């Protein structure tokens, strides 16, 4: 076989492989993107406490302002990052139209297993304690041992303090932020 024919055959195989892969990719892409967003969708439902949020489409990167079809804002969702014992603690914070916290959830952390992971709802209800707090409480939001009103968790002071100060900073920012425009609209 001449080198030219070998080269042409190799090029043909390469082209066929690329084409086949492109076809598989275009068929699976939609489902894969939905799968990748699933943890985010679940976290959004948790921090707003509203299952209708599960039907939102498009980019779900915070900050979000979720409105009714009439344009009335319902929830604001912010991303918070706190410095914990093992590095960054990534959280979502939901606030409703009455300026009350609807929920805080950790979406990523590197805290010690069995100690710092009390911030996950799977292990402890501690983080549910933020629900219902008014935004105006923000400057005074702290652990009881820091002179505030939030009970820390023994053995996980650094972790819980990081969560509390992250939430406090985000609430202060929210208080000072101008009214935001709707990024998403709830259908139904």
């Amino acid at each position, binding site marked *: *076989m001449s080198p030219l024919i070998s*080269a042409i055959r190799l090029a043909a195989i390469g082209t066929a*492989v690329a084409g086949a892969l492109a076809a598989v990719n275009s068929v699976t892409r939609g*489902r*894969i993107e939905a*799968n990748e967003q699933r943890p985010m969708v679940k976290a959004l439902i948790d921090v707003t406490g509203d299952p209708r949020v599960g039907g939102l489409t498009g980019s779900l990167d915070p900050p979000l302002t979720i409105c009714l079809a009439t344009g009335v804002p319902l929830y604001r969702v912010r991303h918070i990052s706190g410095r914990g014992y093992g590095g960054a603690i990534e959280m979502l914070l939901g606030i409703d139209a009455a300026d009350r916290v609807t929920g805080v959830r950790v979406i990523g952390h590197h805290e010690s297993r069995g100690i710092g992971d009390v911030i996950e709802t799977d292990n402890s209800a501690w983080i549910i304690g933020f629900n219902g707090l008014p935004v105006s409480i923000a400057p005074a939001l702290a652990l009881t041992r820091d002179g505030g009103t939030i009970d820390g968790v023994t053995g996980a002071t650094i972790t819980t303090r990081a969560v509390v100060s992250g939430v406090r900073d985000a609430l202060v920012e929210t208080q000072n932020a101008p009214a935001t425009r709707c990024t998403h609209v709830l259908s139904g």
Partner: protein
Amino acid sequence: MSYRADIAHGNGWRDNPALGRLLGLCPLLVVATNTVNALVLSIAAAAVLVTSNVFIASIRRFIPDTARLPATMLLIGLCTSTVALLMQTFAFDVYERIAVFMQIVVTNYFTLVRAETAVQERAFGYVSFDSITTAAGFGIVLLIVGATREIVGQGLPLAVLAPGAFLIAGLLLAAANALGRRS
């Protein structure tokens, strides 16, 4: 011994990819921390191995001799990416656990060795049987390591960490040699 029994014996025991040739040890040591991960990776690796070899065997007359390696790599790459994309579509959570090692199945040397067999003048049945037994041989070792680490890890956390993987794989290798496995 019939020739099928000989192939099965060779690929599953005598020249087992993991125990005989010490190939595919990277996923073996890292992914096989429990039975489920081991099972998922062995099924995925088997799917890549079998589909790519059957694929290569069916177009082997078209593959140029001088460019056999790049051509087979392309085809193995196609099979690996397709399996990875299908897993992300239908079994996303499972895929997340073995993601990195799923993507590098393409570089598993034993996949390539089997592909070399497939491009040579071999009957179709031989190629499929050869790759299925190789995949089974690898899968069984993965499962043994995964299950052992999961069970021992209940009482001895070292087993699920990296040193535990080396110890268990080493003991398994020693046991296989003691049982008279010779390649």
